[in-house]
C-alpha cells in the first residue's frame, strides 16, 4: 500500500476516534442509545457521508468501502424485509395457523389461492438448478404476461383516454366583455385572454407533440414544421422540469449539509 494512502488512512482513523469521543460527551443523554453508541453512530454517518462525497474528487478506498457497505447492507435489508413483510406478514397468516403462531403474527383466515404465489416462487427458484432451470421460464412468463395484461387497460385509461379527454378545451372562450378579456397579466391571471391563450397552447402543444412522435412519415413540409414546434414545446417543458427538479436536489444537499454542520460538528444551531 502506498505511503500516502497509509498516512491518509491513519489521519482519518484518528479524526474518527476524536470525533467519536467528542460526540460521546456532547450528545444528550436522553437519546435512544447510550451516549457511547450515539456518538459512534453520528460519527460513522458523517464518515460515510464524506466518503461518498469524496467520489467527486476521485475513486478512493473510502468511497469503495462506503459503496460496498451500502450495497451489501441494502441487499441484505431488502431480503430480510421481504421475508418479514411478504412471507410472515402476508402469506403465513393466510395459509397456516401453526406458522402464524410460530412467528407471533395473528392468523387471519384460510385463503387457498394464496398457495399459488409460493408455488410460482419455488418454480422461479428452480432457475438455480442446471437441469430444472427451464421450468422457471413458466413463472417468468406468468409474471411478465399477467402484469402486461393488467397494465394494458389501466394505462390505456389513465395515460391515454383521460389525457385525450382533458385536451377537449374550447379555443374560443365565451365573450364576457372587454374588462374580463384582458384582466391582469400576472402568473395568476384569470382573464379570458389568458384562458384562450392557455387552451390554444395546450391544443397545439399536444397536437404537434404527437406529430413529432410519428414514425411512419418523414418530417418534411408542414408536417416537419409541426414536428419542430412539437419538439420545441417538449424541450421547453423539459427545461422547466429540469430547473424544478434541481431545486429539489439542492434541498436534499441542504439536508445533508445540515446534518454535517449541525448534528456532527455543532457549528450551526
Amino acid at each position, binding site marked *: 500500500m502506498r505511503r500516502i494512502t497509509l498516512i491518509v488512512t491513519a489521519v482519518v482513523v484518528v479524526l474518527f476516534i476524536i470525533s467519536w469521543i467528542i460526540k460521546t460527551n456532547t450528545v444528550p443523554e436522553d437519546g435512544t442509545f447510550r451516549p457511547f453508541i450515539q456518538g459512534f453512530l453520528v460519527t460513522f454517518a458523517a464518515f460515510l457521508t464524506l466518503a461518498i462525497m469524496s467520489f467527486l474528487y476521485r475513486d478512493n478506498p473510502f468511497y469503495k468501502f*462506503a459503496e460496498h457497505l451500502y450495497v451489501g447492507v441494502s*441487499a441484505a435489508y431488502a431480503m430480510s424485509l421481504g421475508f418479514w413483510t411478504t412471507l410472515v406478514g402476508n402469506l403465513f397468516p393466510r395459509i397456516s395457523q401453526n406458522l402464524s403462531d410460530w412467528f407471533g403474527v395473528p392468523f387471519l383466515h384460510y385463503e387457498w389461492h394464496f398457495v399459488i404465489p409460493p408455488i410460482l416462487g419455488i418454480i422461479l427458484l428452480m432457475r438455480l438448478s442446471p437441469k430444472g432451470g427451464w421450468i*422457471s*421460464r413458466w413463472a417468468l412468463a406468468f*409474471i411478465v404476461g399477467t402484469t402486461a395484461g393488467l397494465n394494458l387497460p389501466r*394505462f390505456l*385509461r389513465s395515460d391515454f383516454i383521460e389525457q385525450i*379527454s382533458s385536451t377537449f378545451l374550447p379555443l374560443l372562450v365565451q365573450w364576457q366583455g372587454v374588462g374580463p378579456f384582458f384582466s391582469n397579466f400576472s402568473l395568476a391571471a384569470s382573464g379570458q385572454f389568458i384562458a384562450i391563450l392557455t387552451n390554444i397552447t395546450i391544443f397545439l402543444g399536444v397536437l404537434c407533440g404527437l406529430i413529432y412522435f410519428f414514425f411512419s412519415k418523414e418530417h418534411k413540409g408542414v408536417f416537419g414544421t409541426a414536428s419542430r414546434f412539437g419538439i420545441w414545446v417538449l424541450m421547453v417543458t423539459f427545461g422547466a422540469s429540469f430547473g424544478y*427538479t434541481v431545486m429539489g436536489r439542492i434541498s436534499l444537499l441542504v439536508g445533508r449539509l445540515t446534518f454535517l454542520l449541525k448534528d456532527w460538528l455543532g457549528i450551526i444551531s
Partner: protein
Amino acid sequence: MTAKTILFILVAVLLAPLVMAQEEAVPDSTVGVIPPAPPLNFRAFDTPYDNGHSISLEWELSADDGQGRNNVLGYRVMRAESPDGPFVERGIVTSGGTSYNDSGVKESDSPDYFPRDHDFYYKIVATTADGSEAESEVFGPVRAVGQWFNARKWPVLIAVGLFTAFTLAFITLARRGKDLYVRPLAGIEAVDEAIGRATEMGKPILYVMGLGTAADIATIASFTILSRVAKKVAEYQTSLIVPCYDPIVMTVAQETVKASYYDAGRPDAYDDKDVFFLTNQQFAYVGGVNGIMIRQKPATNFYLGKFYAESLILAETGATTGSIQISGTDEVTQIPFFVVACDYTLIGEELYAASAYLGREPVLLGTLKAQDWGKACVIISIILGVLFAIFGWQDGVDAFRPGN
C-alpha cells in the same frame, strides 16, 4: 260529620300541595319544536357496474334545506332488513346532499361486510340542530347485485379493439413482405456505432436497465433492445455488463442475453456473471454502478428503462469516464437530465420504438405502424373534441370520458 272526618279532611287539604310539589314538573320538549319537512322522492337501487357490494340512494332535498325554515343540518341514512326495522344508521350526509352510496367489503368476517343478493330496506331522516327529525318513506326491498361488465368503460374497450385491429393488420402486411417505412432516429442509428467503438477499444459495454420491475413498459422495451445489443456483442466478441436492480428483471435479462448469444452462434461466450443482481435500493444501486463505471471504464453506456433521481448521477459519472452514452426513458422528469449529459437520448415513445428499429422484425414493425395509426386516431379525436367544446356540444365531449 264527625271530628275525625273533619280532621282528616283538613290534613289532606294541608298535605296535598306538599305531595304534589314533590313531583317535578317535566317540561314538554316538543312544545314549540317544529320538525323539518321530510326528504322527497327517495329511492334506492343497486349501484350499477360494480361488484355487488353497494347500494345507491338518491332523494330530493327537504323543503327546509336551504330554503323554508332552513334548519336541516343533514340526513341520516337508515337501513333495516325488514320494512318495520330495526333500522341502523349507515351514514350521514350533510345538508344539501342528495345521494349516498351504502357500500362495504366482500369478506364476510370483516366488520364492513356488505352482503350481496340480500334484501334491505332504507329510509332517509332529515335532522335539525334541536333534535327534531323527519323521515322519508321506507324504500325496499332492494338488493346489491354484481355485474359482469362495467359498461361505463366502453371507450377503453373501443380503444383496445381498434389498436388490436391495427396491430394485427400491420403485422400481417409486414409478414407478407410489404416494406413499412420508419423515419431514421439518431439515437438508434448510433447503437451499432457505439458497440463497434467498444469492440475497437477492447472495453466492455455497460447496459443499465434502470429501477423498473418486469411489469414496467420501459423495462420490457429495454429487454427487447438488450437482446439486439447482446446479439451484436456476441458477434463482435465484446464483453457486456448488466447490473440489475430487480431480481425478476435480472432473471429475464439473463434469459434474454443467453438466447441472444445462442442466436449469434456463441453460446460458449455467455457468462451468467455478466448479468447480475446488485441491490434494490435506489442510491446503493447507483453507487455500485458508479463504481463499475469508474473501475472497469466501459467504452459504451446504455441507460434504457425506468429511471428516477439517480439518472443524472449515472450520466455524469459516465461522462467523466469518456464513455459514449445512449439513454432512453419514459420518465418525463428524468429525460432532461439524460438530454444534457448523454450523447443520444431516446425520448418516451422512441424507446418503445427502438426495438422495432433495431430488429426490423415484422411483428415489431407492424406494432410500430399500428401505434402510428393509433396516434392518428388520437389526433382526429382531439380535433373533434375541441370542435365539440367550441360549439358547446357537451354530450360529444362526455362521450370520450370513461366512467368509474
